């Protein structure tokens, strides 16, 4: 489990987090959402030890990431958004870093490269952007760490690759693994991410599972715009209205509408979901 307690973090004069607290439970695929510049990548870097909190604490299974103990590092992998362009093949790359990860499986790497349809003979700098992303994803998954952090993993993937992405991530998930996917492309990871965390400047607005969200919030698809809804938007064929769920109705979370509803009613929804 990842525990963040009263965390403060700033880059020089820019405050990113101010006394935020949140937890990530094992066995889940979290979606980390937030507007540009709210600190999604920074949060991932703090959790994997690439940044050090100025105040408060981050612990991952009782270990402190910023101490960078081998025991911690061998069980965590962070796949950044920017792709490397090393003059080496993915195969040589994974063989080089694999030795640091006890559960690394070269057979799994080969299998994933096949499933994701990446050309094994090419070097990173000869692959297209999307192919690079997929090769790095195969590398990340083959390390089989309990904690996996993916920053905008679907950017640049073509349509069939996005479906493959959902399959390989769902396959990776077990009771022992925690995956956090930071993304703006919510359509790409719809039905894959659950729970959802929404970050705001200095703050965490939401950290809830779909079951918890639909218990409190109702997503109505209907012919009209409803007054006093948290959020309402015209869709082809009608409107989506995000409302308080006062009558215990079941509905399907529309992540985009949820996000907009939360951004428009920050305090209300924060209190509602407490």
């Amino acid at each position: 489990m990842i525990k963040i307690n009263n965390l403060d973090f700033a880059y020089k004069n820019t405050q990113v987090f101010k006394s935020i607290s949140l937890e990530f439970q094992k066995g889940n695929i979290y979606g980390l959402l937030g507007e540009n510049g709210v600190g999604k990548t920074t949060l991932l870097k703090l959790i994997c030890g690439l940044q050090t909190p100025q105040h408060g604490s981050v612990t991952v299974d009782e270990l402190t990431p910023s101490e960078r103990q081998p025991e911690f590092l061998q069980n965590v992998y962070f796949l950044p958004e920017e792709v490397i362009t090393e003059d080496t093949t993915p195969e040589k790359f994974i063989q080089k870093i694999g030795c640091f990860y006890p559960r690394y499986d070269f057979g799994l790497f080969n299998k994933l490269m096949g499933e994701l349809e990446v050309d094994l003979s090419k070097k990173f700098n000869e692959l297209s952007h999307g192919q690079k992303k997929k090769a790095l994803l195969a590398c990340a998954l083959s390390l089989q760490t309990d904690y996996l952090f993916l920053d905008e993993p679907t950017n640049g993937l073509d349509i069939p690759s996005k479906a493959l992405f959902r399959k390989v991530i769902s396959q990776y998930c077990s009771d022992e693994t925690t995956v956090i996917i930071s993304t703006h492309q919510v359509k790409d990871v719809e039905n894959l991410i659950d729970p959802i965390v929404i970050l705001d400047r200095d703050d965490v607005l939401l950290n809830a599972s779909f079951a918890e969200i639909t218990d409190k919030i109702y997503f109505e698809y209907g012919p009209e715009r409803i007054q006093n809804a948290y959020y309402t938007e015209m869709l082809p064929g009608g409107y989506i209205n995000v409302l308080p769920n006062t009558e215990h109705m079941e509905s399907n979370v529309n992540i985009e509408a949820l996000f907009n509803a939360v951004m428009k009613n920050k305090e209300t929804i924060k209190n509602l979901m407490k």
Partner: protein
Amino acid sequence: MDFNGHKPIYLQIYDHVCERILSGEFRSGDRVMSVRELGVELGVNPNTVMRAFERLQMKEIIATKRGIGFYVCEDAKEKILSEQKKDFLENEVPEFLKKMELYGIKIEEIVSLQQNSK
């Protein structure tokens, strides 16, 4: 599988498994694929599949056995059909009746349509 936007995904997965039982793909006493396998096949969060399976268990359509996992219950088909029939009568028929009234269709017209289609 294409999900529609209106119905909770776990209920759509519930329906999907029911369809596969009705079609005979999963037979009574057979092992159903695991939560993980179905999650991978559909590209869906395993927790969502688990919710669907919990509902299938609650409705006694599938049950769990130690060491085997989930299997299809003896009278699963009958249970699904009776549930679908109930849903049809409670939800679709009233809609249908409303439309009949709107278009001014008499019940005799429907009866003759039914007889002609036999």
